[in-house]
């Protein structure tokens, strides 16, 4: 059904040059989205819930070694491998370019998790639980997922909806950077990032800060990386998943011997 409300295509830019790997986004996401607290056991079993995670790579050999950080979250692929494998349509693409996970439809087959090349989908192996009294800090806008279903980053859709309602109630007609100054509909990770390494916006908004990066990457798809004017690239571009998240390469001022500047 054509609907005036759907005139968005949400996207994110992660500037690796600014990312310091501080994990503030991980904590912010944990708090915003009612994610259970990960214990040591969860990590050892490789079953930790992290809708956004900081991947760490070492470059070089000791003592000339550098740590590289990369925040990885659901890429909200336009051509998402997780979507066609779901037998119950619990995950689908909506008109705003979001890869949606409907918790109450999910039956926990985990096909989507296995088909996701970015490893950003989490399965609830346990009933979520928090230390007593911490249950009062749960975000009322977000569902507490039960055991046996898959969950993942939603681009904080509850904040987008809240922004839309706010704009509507103020008589505005469209949610963008201008109607809500300062991007109050930003996901928690973007809001928490101390170095502004993460940027969020609407690709259908011509004034969005993320727009030039996407235009550049889209203009030189596939392996045309060297033709690009910006440092932008997509994760696993050769898989043609068309992610809605773009990464900007790190510019290394003091590269390791024998390494390039990127």
């Amino acid at each position, binding site marked *: 059904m054509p609907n005036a409300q759907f005139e968005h295509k949400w996207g994110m830019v992660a500037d690796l040059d600014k990312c310091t790997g501080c994990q503030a986004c991980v904590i912010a996401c944990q708090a915003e989205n009612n994610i259970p607290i990960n214990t040591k056991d969860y990590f050892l079993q490789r079953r930790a819930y992290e809708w956004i995670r900081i991947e760490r790579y070492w470059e070089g050999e000791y003592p000339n070694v550098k740590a590289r950080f990369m925040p990885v979250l659901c890429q909200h692929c336009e051509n998402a491998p997780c979507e066609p494998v779901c037998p119950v349509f619990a995950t689908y693409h*909506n008109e705003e370019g979001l890869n949606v996970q409907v918790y109450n439809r999910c039956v926990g087959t985990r096909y989507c998790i296995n088909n996701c090349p970015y490893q950003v989908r989490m399965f609830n192996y346990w009933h979520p639980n928090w230390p007593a009294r911490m249950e009062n800090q749960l975000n009322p*806008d977000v*569902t507490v997922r039960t055991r046996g279903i898959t969950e993942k980053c939603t681009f904080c859709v*509850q904040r987008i909806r809240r922004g839309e309602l706010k704009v509507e109630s103020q008589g505005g007609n469209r949610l963008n950077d201008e109607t809500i100054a300062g991007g109050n509909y930003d996901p928690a990770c973007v809001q928490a990032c101390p170095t502004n390494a993460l940027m969020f916006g609407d690709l259908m908004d011509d004034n969005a800060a993320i727009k030039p990066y996407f235009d550049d990457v889209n203009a030189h798809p596939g392996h045309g990386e060297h033709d690009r004017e910006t440092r932008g690239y997509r994760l696993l571009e050769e898989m043609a998943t068309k992610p809605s998240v773009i990464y900007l390469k790190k510019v290394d001022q003091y590269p390791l011997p024998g390494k390039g500047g990127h």
Partner: protein
Amino acid sequence: MPPLPPTRQLIPLALAGLLATAIVAFIVVVLFMSWFSNPPFGWGNAPDQPIPFPHTVHAGAVEDGGHAIQCEFCHRNVTTGAAATVPAVEVCVICHKQINGANAKADVAEPETLINIQRVIDKHADGRPIDWERVHRMPDHVRFVHEAHLRFLTQGEERVVTLPVGNEEPMTLPVPVQEACTVCHGDVAHMEEVQPQDGQSLKMGTCLDCHRENNVSTDCTVCHK
């Protein structure tokens, strides 16, 4: 072991058949009950409140012996936020500081009513909340925003819509808040106890019918997030 007579041989089969019938019947009954009942309270009965609260007296029309207090006077978040909110005891005491046993006219209030009012005042004096029981409950994966729905019903230019809830008659919008509430909650102002079954069933089909009718988005993330 000699073979059993033919009739005896059928006994295990018959038992298995009975068991299968019992299991199927059980499942059918459970499905039937869960479809037609209001999940937390069985067949739609209102839960017992810690202190009886007659909406008839508070919100009912003056000619019916009520005080016609507007819905949003107590449920004051309803026009601004997601939850309508149940008022704090302080809101009760705004009126009941004056309206209580000490200065009530004996012929107006029954003794039982005065006791209940005194319990509200005592709660306030103790600084403790009243543990009201929730009547309209949504599953945890549904997020309903009162503000947006009341804005649709109570604001905007004059228009006639047919809502697939309530009596399904054409309705001229905007309407006052009190009338807007009755669309889903039923005529609460004339309910001694708020009964979930007197309002809408609050099943997902009800929501979807209305969203489709009024060309509102039916994307899952509108309600499930």
